[in-house]
Each structure stands twice: as C-alpha cells, then as structure tokens.
C-alpha cells in the first residue's frame, strides 16, 4: 500500500471486527439520532484512513443512485409524507453498511486479509471471501461502463428516470442482465487464473508476509546470488503455513 494511516496500520482482524460492528449497527439503526451518530462515527473512521471526499464519492456514488430509486419507491407506495423517512433511512443504512467494507478493502493487503480470515475459516474459503471483496471496484467500473453504453442507446437509467416504474424494465434488461453476464464471465476467468497457479492443489499453502520478508530477501540476495536447493520444508517454512 502506498498510503499510510492509523487505519492502514490496524490489523486486518481488528478492521474486520470493527467493520462488522459498524455494519451491524447500520442494520439496527432506527431513529434519526442513531443514524446521525453512526454517520459521524463512520465518517471519522473513513477519513482516519486518510481517504478523501473524492474517494468517498467514488465509493458511494452508485448507492446514491440506488437511494433515489428506494426513496422514490417508498414515496410511491406509501405517499410522499409517509414514505420519505423510511426510504431515506433504508438508503442511509445501505451506504453505512457498505462504507466499513470499502475502508477494509482500501487499507488492507491481500495477505493481511487472508491471514485475518484464516483464523476463522479454511484458506480456500478465506480466499473466496477476499476475492469477492477485491473485485467490487472492478464490478463498479463495469456497472458504470454498461450504464454509459446503454444510456447512449436510449436506455432510461438515470435516477430521475427510474422513479417512473415504466422504466424499471430498462434497469433489469439493460443494466442488471449484462452485469450478471459479465460477472459470470469474470468469475470463470478468475477461477481459471487461480487454478492455473495451483490454488487448491494442495491441502495447505505457505504465507508470504510482504512487509517482513522483503527486507530479509534483500539481505539474503546480497549474501548469495543463487537460491539454495531445498528438498524439504525447514522450520521457517512451517511458520508461514496456513
């Protein structure tokens, strides 16, 4: 990671725990006071990671789009007065649920994340969880590009257009369907890539700690230019086994 902050230095396990807690609180928040307090705490956590308002916009812009749809639907079903607050609350809850995950993703290395997860679940499963999160930005970009292509063909996908139920068909056919196709295709490519690099071929795997090993390797490289042949795993290797 090129950036550094107190949140970057926090262990992946702590960030997972904190993120889970904040997301759980987001689900449980009901009153305006609770929601306001949670917004404050979440934003403090976000900006403590030295992320910028521009980053925040990039992380949440699609949820803003979703929020317009949700609020519109609530107002439509329950009327403007009764539907506004529940619609706003649910939209805010979704955004607040997601932000801790975005912080985790932006501030945690793959290895740290898998090391945190492997204490709870087998390494194959921890990798699956990580890859699912790792590709969130990729799919947000895909979503953006699909929406762009479809809008230019005449699809009605702007938030203000989606307030009209007659345009919801476009949301499914022009946006969600191509996104699902892309997701399946990408999942296949990711799985092949992992398999080509022998992922899952053995019962266990070693773990390379970037921050610790980089320095040691440099020193070792200076001492000897060739890698000694190793016929068995030494005691150091065992330390890294997942």
């Amino acid at each position, binding site marked *: 990671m090129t950036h550094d902050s107190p949140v970057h230095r926090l262990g992946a396990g702590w960030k997972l725990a904190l993120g889970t807690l904040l997301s759980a609180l987001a689900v449980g928040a009901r009153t305006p006071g609770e929601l306001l307090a949670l917004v404050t705490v979440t934003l403090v956590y976000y900006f403590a990671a030295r992320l910028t308002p521009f980053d925040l916009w990039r992380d949440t812009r699609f949820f803003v789009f979703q929020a317009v749809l949700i609020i519109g639907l609530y107002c439509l079903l329950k009327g403007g007065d009764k539907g506004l607050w529940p619609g706003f609350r649910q939209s805010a809850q979704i955004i607040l649920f997601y932000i801790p995950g975005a912080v985790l993703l932006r501030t945690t290395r793959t290895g740290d994340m898998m090391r945190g997860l492997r204490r709870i679940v087998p390494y194959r499963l921890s990798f699956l969880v990580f890859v699912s999160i790792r590709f969130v930005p990729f799919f947000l970009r895909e979503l953006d590009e699909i929406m*762009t*292509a479809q809008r*230019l063909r005449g699809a009605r996908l*702007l938030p203000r257009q989606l307030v009209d139920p007659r345009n919801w068909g476009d949301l499914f056919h*022009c946006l969600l369907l191509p996104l699902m196709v*892309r997701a399946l295709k990408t999942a296949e490519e990711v799985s092949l890539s992992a398999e080509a*690099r022998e992922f899952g071929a053995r019962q266990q795997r*070693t773990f390379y700690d970037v921050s610790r090993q980089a320095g040691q390797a440099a020193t070792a490289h200076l001492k000897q230019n060739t890698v000694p042949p190793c016929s068995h795993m030494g005691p150091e290797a065992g330390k*890294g086994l997942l």
Partner: protein
Amino acid sequence: MSSDVLTINSLAYTYPGASTPALTDVSCSIGNGEFICLTGDSGCGKTTLLLAIKGLLRGGSYSDAITITVPPSDDGWSTPVGLVFQNAESQILCTTVAEEVAFGPENLCTPPEEIALRVRESLQAVGLDDCETRHVERFSAGQKQRLTIASTLSMKPGLLLLDEPTSQLDGKGKRDLCELLTGFKSQGYTIIMAEHDPRPFTNIIDRYLPIAGGRIGTSTSTMPDSGRYAANIAATTESVAEAEPEVAIEVQELCVSYPETGVALQRVSLKVMRGELIHLFGSNGAGKSSLLRCLTGLETPDSGTVELAGITDPHPEHLPGKVGVLFQNPSRQLFAESVYEEVAFALRRMGASTQEIKRVVAEALTLCGIGHLAERAPLTLSFGEQHRVALAAVVAPKPLVLLLDEPFAGLDFPQRLTLLAILGEMPGRYGTTVVIASHDELPDQAWADRTLHLRGGHLDETGH
C-alpha cells in the same frame, strides 16, 4: 533444442454440450528452448489447446494425449507449465504487486524466504523492480501484462504458455513485450505463444503452428499467410465530405484533468466535417477515452466547448439516433432475446413504426453481414458475431456521427478488415462521420481520411 519438452499425439476435445469438437487430431512436439507461435483466427482453437496443455479443461469429451517431459523439481516448489491468460484485468487476484507474484509459490507450499527471492527475481525479469509494494489498480495495461508474466515466472515453469499477450497493449507495450520475450528466449525458456497477429515477434519465433477449425497445420519457420496483412480495402470506401461540407464535430480549447492522474487533455481543438473517416490514434492513457467521453457529454471538461452532430454541450440522453457509440466489449451492451430485438431497441426508443423498424433492422443486419443471425440470442454468439451485432445496433439509427472506442480489441485480422469495410460504407450510405479511437494502427492505413495523434493530452494531425 536438445529434447522435446512437450509431445501431443492425436489430441481431440469437445466442450460440454458442443456438437462439434474444438480440437481434432492435434499432434505436435515442442523442443527444449523453442519459441513457438500458435497462429490462427479467433475461435480456431488456440486457447483451448493452451488450456489442454496446462490441464485446465474440465468436462467434455477429451482424449488425453499430452506428454510433458519437464524434469520435476526435487522440492516440488515449481510447476511444469505456466499459463498467462489474455485478460490481465481478471487474472490479477491480489492487491499489491508482491502478493500477486507470491500467490503461485504460496500455493506450491514454497517457504516464505524462497518466495521473497522469487518475487524479487521475477519482478526484475519483467522490469518491475522496486514495484513490490505498489497497488496493482494503478498499473497501466502494459505493466499489468508484465505483472501476470512475473506471477507465472515465480512458479519456475519449465514451459511458458502465453495466450494473446498483446491484445490490450499499444505499440510501445508490444515492443516492450517483444524485448522481454527475446530476453526469455536467450535464457533458454521454452515458450508457446498463441497470437493471431505474430508480426511484432517474427525475429524471435522459431516455428509457426497454424490452427484452423481445431486442426493443426504443417509447422513452418516463416509466417503463414503473411500476405493477408497487406490487404487494402480503401477502394471500397467513399467519402461525402466534399459534397456536404457540414461540421459534424467541433471542439475548441478542451481541457480535462483528474485529481489522481493530472492533465488528460490540454487545449484540444478539433473540427471534423460530415462524412469524414477519422482515426484517433494514441497509446494507452493518451486521453482518447477522455476525449470521447467529453464529446458524448459523459464527462464535463474543465474548460472548452464541444459541438457534436449540431448539439452544443451534448448530453448522453440527447444523442440516441444522432450519435452512435460502440465500446470495446460488446457483451456490455447486449441483453435482448434475439439479434433482431437487440438492433431494434434504439429504433423503438426513437418512436419508429413497426414497418420502419423491420426495414431498417434488415438493412443494418445486411450491412453488418449478420442477416442469418436475426433470430439467434446475442449472448450465445461468438465474440466476433457479438461485435457485429453491437455494431448493427448502433448503426441502425443511421447516426450522423459514429464513435468507436478500441473497436479492434479481441478481433483477428480478417475481422478487423471486415469492420473497416463496413465502417467505410457509412459515409456513402448515410453521410455518417466515423471516428475510430484506438491504440492499434489501422489494418488498412489508407482507410482514414485523417489520422489524429493524441500524445500526452495534445492533439496533432498527421494525415496520411
């Protein structure tokens, strides 16, 4: 070239549910240290053969006829065959460079101190030294391609397979990759590269193995069918630019910058007349996409003005029918149940009558050579066919301006020529102005009326 590393005897494979085999009676042998190019058009079976060699084909009907004689390492911390896929974007699984390169050795249970050395050596081999802690998201397409190669090298493969490694690279990226592979060859690596256009690598390729329809042809030391690359389709194009000197695109003093990457476009001015054929050429990151996004109103410039198809400061919602845009990956815009419905979508949105839609769709399908696919589901078609469906969908409304962003990606040479031929008919038929933005040279240099070079945010006109 002492002994064979790979021997294949009468290999056949049929994908699950497919009626025809993807590979039929494939036999060949590859010597130690050879650089082999598997060449053939899209869908001929190149990728399937590489997957078969790597042992990644699942299900289907398969005759196991592959013998790999790479001596196994004593410690088991290496892989006999390493495969680098075409799409670097979905191949990179980790967030930082070092983690990505370490991923393979970790799976082979390599001790961490050995992994550290391999990470360093592999990154050095591809010229990415000192990038260990960098985030992969910030890498260029060329750097990502190098990273995927390093991630495979770190597993110490005896045989290196590369699947269309240049597909996302611009001219410089291709030259750099060629230099890199030249180095690998001199170090004794055995390499099999699948590539539909092997021209950048002719100096290092020992043998060509042509594939067509899943069958492998006779091995040659010279590039097969090299005459195809001299094709000239310019004679079929006709321009109406002189007949109707109407301005189709006018850009004045356009400036765009981003918080993270800085200036993308700097005081770009441009005037394109109706019916002109324009090639907007530039390397990855030169600003082509930014310019197209500004033209279509998807991006608001810092300063400057845009007029497109008579619309000042265009907005995406105002463009359907007047401006067509074709993006790189056609599957992003296909959703309908049939090709006919896909092409008719924009026309329905424009309020055309059923009779009019029938007539115009038939015309667009004929122009793009896919009339026989009208009832097929777009998502079940091959990449090349999907590309033509997407093209027909944007061509059908007979736009005044047609913008294409990297339209050659994933297409083989004949498909590229066909695309140019279709686009070349647009000015004559509809008076359409066509702008192709790409990092590739055009398959036929004579196609464009003008070539505009984007370099570092500046636009230069070179003509032809």
